[in-house]
């Protein structure tokens, strides 16, 4: 499987990473190289094999459905690049 420039552009878009048009051919080449390396997995017979989920069989713990914290608005907003009036601020989303 080789990645063409159009696919590289689409992947960058999906990943929300801006890539300059001029850099797309190099990116496509690099991604193709890595995917080619992954192609080896096609040699393995995986029929009847379930995907691995845990190291040893372990039931996920359940916790009581209760509130354990809260009232930490200040702490949550502390690291925001732009916080106003108790909210995270972002550019206008809806016209």
């Amino acid at each position, binding site marked *: 499987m080789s990645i063409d420039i159009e696919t590289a552009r689409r992947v960058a878009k999906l990943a*929300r*990473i801006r890539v300059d048009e001029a850099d797309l051919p190099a990116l496509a080449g690099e991604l193709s190289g890595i995917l080619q390396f992954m192609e080896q997995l096609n040699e*393995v017979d995986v029929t009847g094999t379930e*995907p691995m989920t845990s190291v040893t069989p372990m039931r*996920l713990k359940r916790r009581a459905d209760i509130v354990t914290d809260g009232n930490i608005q200040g702490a949550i907003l502390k690291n925001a690049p732009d916080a106003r009036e108790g909210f995270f601020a*972002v550019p206008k989303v809806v016209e």
Partner: protein
Amino acid sequence: MSAGANTLTVAAARDALRRRELSAVDLTMACLTAMDAADSLNAFVHKTPEIALAQARAADARLAAGAAPDLCGIPLGIKDLFCTRGVASQAASNILRGFRPEYESTVTSQLFAAGAVMLGKLNMDEFAMGSSNETSCYGDAVNPWRRAGDDTALTPGGSSGGSASAVAADLCLAATGTDTGGSIRQPAAFTGIVGIKPTYGRVSRWGIIAFASSLDQAGPMTKTVRDAALLLGTMAGHDPKDSTSADLPVPDFEAALTGEIRGKTIGIPREYRMDGMPAEIEALWAHGTAMLKDAGARIVDISLPHTKYALPAYYVIAPAEASSNLARYDGVRYGHRAKLAQGDGITEMYEKTRAEGFGKEVQRRVMIGTYVLSAGFYDAYYNRARKVRALIKRDFEQAFATGVDAILTPATPSSAFGLGEMAHADPVEMYLNDVFTVTVNLAGLPGIAVPVGLDAKGLPLGLQLIGRPWQEADLLNHAYVLEQAAGFVAKAQKWW
């Protein structure tokens, strides 16, 4: 005895502190002095001397009162991947520039509750993605070791490169690391120290910045196996805040170091004898095998037939999980936000922020992960890789079922290489550094790197022991026997 106290092991410092021959403040000062004189190693990237001295004074008070825990007053370096309250924690990424967590990771909470002292945060590859510490936003960490008669700067390995460099150079007594594909064991081997990745679930991941959640595991990087036992005992344990954390008792790892392995069975996997393996690595492996045999272990050849598929499976699974985990860095809640142009909307904000904030290797892995998870490819890549992962795990289970107690392999395919030497290599060539370590993460097993000898260039080489799940105590004992037999005492010649 405070002069040179930074060169002590954790166990020796513990004993001296308890006998009150050494104060925690003096020990901490010795480390801070060593740290400040070693900026050329670029190991510590955020120094916290005020926190260290406050913690050391508290430790002295606790030691004076008696019955202090093992790590009381022990100065440590903390990998930048661990969130530490009020202290920069940015995973060596520009996207987290300025981030100061409002909370403390479970591992560092447990270390500090036991009285450990934090000297500062340590360099690493960006988001732990790398094998040479060359993807860091802080610049390269440097290995204190150099080739004989050659002052080329060498990599300390990665991703826990700063941790390895700091411990090997005696800037701290021990350090925390994390290991997703070999990021504790490979740098430990490159710097002549000990590093253990515990069984997945042994140590809480809460508050450790996530890379690939089904593979990430924290562990100690230390000067000796005994020190690794001491640190692991404090770092490990069940944590309700990490749903994958195992609710199992934590044994006394130090007490397990009996030095007795007579009658134990050591497996030597034939698939780890790679084509083109350097003769020195081959000889080191044979030497390690002979030492364990001399100690009374039975040596058996074993087969782990899916070994060659571990790296390709890893390079599907890890980027897939990373692309999901790193989606949170969007310029909204923390860290960097790009300056926007007139008319830019929220999508431009995301795209510019992530293009500016993430380095090249992180961008590459996020995009690979995005691709393999995208519609139409999920089964072909991601699900297939997870099935191959199950087969890799089954290989180990079958070996252990035949009575194997531990598996001995090389830790790395070579000694430390020069910084920049791989700059023009294919990304896949750099990934080959993890060839002996990555299987262990995929199978969730514990693995430890132990320094065993020097190569012809005078650089350290290590071997890896792999244990049964949850049997770190037994694994550490095997490592202890190997360490005692190898008698590795060489240190890097101080040039920094």
